[in-house]
């Protein structure tokens, strides 16, 4: 589902954020991406969402090399990648329902279909009763779950999460992680950037470790 082949990303003046990274994430596989801050976790996630382009190497998503795709193709690639942000990135002037519905509105689904899927998604994260609430009235954990509902409402084959439990207590963090496991079990590839090593240990999934831009564990050997 996701393949990196000798991927490097250089920011001019700052050196290599990633260098020669190679790894594979199969369909329906869940993995953690870990490393100290500045190790390149965010850079790696951004490459998958085509927020940035690789300096070298190939990034394959769904067997498509997205490193050099046309700008116009980018939105369609992103629709296959559900992203969960540490700061949730919700629209605070819209209800929970409208926030979750946004990806479906973008895809041009019918009104009825949107309603059905949004409620299914909110039900999944346990917030069906909050559909008419504004995000500001929700707790941090609830806002995070709204973000998750929005990321999965389109049933994307890939789910990315950047420090999804960054601000949550251990119990809530565990709940969120279990939620991700459920998506993995229905065939979604899940990649979670986190430095919560305790929690990662409990989950028992594949771990990709980055250190100063190099993948020191979980990756593939450099290809020639």
């Amino acid at each position: 589902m996701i393949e990196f082949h000798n991927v490097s990303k250089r920011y001019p003046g700052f050196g290599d954020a990633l260098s020669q990274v190679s790894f594979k994430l199969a369909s329906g596989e869940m993995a953690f991406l870990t490393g100290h801050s500045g190790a390149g976790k965010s850079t790696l996630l951004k490459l998958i969402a085509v927020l940035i382009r690789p300096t070298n190497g190939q990034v394959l998503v769904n067997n498509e090399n997205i490193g050099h795709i046309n700008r116009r193709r980018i939105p369609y690639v992103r629709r296959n990648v559900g992203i969960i942000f540490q700061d949730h990135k919700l629209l605070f002037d819209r209800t929970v329902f409208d926030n979750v519905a946004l990806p479906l509105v973008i895809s041009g689904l019918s009104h009825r279909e949107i309603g059905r899927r949004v409620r299914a998604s909110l039900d999944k994260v346990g917030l069906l009763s909050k559909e008419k609430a504004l995000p500001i009235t929700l707790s941090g954990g609830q806002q995070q779950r709204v973000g998750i509902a929005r990321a999965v409402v389109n049933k994307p084959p890939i789910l990315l999460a950047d420090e999804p439990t960054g601000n949550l207590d251990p119990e809530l963090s565990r709940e969120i992680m279990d939620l991700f496991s459920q998506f993995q079990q229905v065939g979604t590839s899940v990649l979670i950037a986190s430095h919560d090593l305790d929690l990662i240990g409990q989950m028992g999934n594949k771990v990709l470790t980055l250190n100063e831009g190099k993948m020191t564990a979980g990756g593939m050997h450099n290809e020639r």
Partner: protein
Amino acid sequence: MISPAIYLARHMQVMLSTLGQMIRSPMSNLMTIAVMGIALALPTGLHIILKNVQQVTAQWDGAAQISLFLKPSVTDKQANQLANILRQRQDIKSVTSINRNEALEEFRKNSGFGEALEALEENPFPAVIVVYPTEQSDNLLTVQGMLASLKDKPEVELAQLDMQWLKRLYAIMDFGRRGIWVLAAMLSLSVLLVVGNTIRLAIQNRRDEIEIIKLIGGTDAFIRRPFLYTGFWYGLSGGILSWLLVTLSIWLLSGPVNQLATLYDSNYSLSSLDFLSSLTLLGLSICLGLAGSWLAVSRHLHAIEPE
């Protein structure tokens, strides 16, 4: 991928929701619409005035006429003979003759100086023969030739060509028309910039939203759509406002103009924007609104990229 029906429904939905947003914050939007309306009303109003002037002068269009003022010694009979001779000519369409008494009566009736005439011992008016050239010979050169030949008739005291002033009036009107175009172009540009600037502010206000939509796979067209519809609504409401302003102004002017026309013995009345002109005004206004928002959107949307 998306069925046409849903695509259309989406457009309608965006169209209505942008209208709803504008109605919910009326003050700032009214300012923009007012600027647009006034800026468009100015050239439109001038255009209407020019069109009215054209209408007044249209009756004179191509109607060069030569007035032959006959010598006082010429009798009515002689005058009629001359008129009949002139009627035979190929290059003359028609001839009207006004004898001395008729001229006196007309003056007495229309001028209000009838009593002054009583003081005169004899009729001061000469007989007049008005010659209208045929359409073929109705150009300045032939008419001037005709004028020269008529002037030499023994009965004629004075021959006068009533055309020069018309030419001058047309030249002034041409100048006015050009002036209105220049004014319209400049004001249209300002309307474009006003809409562009308003949309630019709207884009900045919704920066977060645009960023999020881009993150979850919204196309440029999807992001552009509400802003373009906002431009459309600005254009439409600005156009309607300018139409109202022009119509109101014409209505205010029509009273005095009617009075003036009565004084000139005419039943002329001021014409307002006809259906086609109104449609053109609205169409142009909508185009300007759309173009302005397109300008802002294409300039500023690319600058907002999620990180």
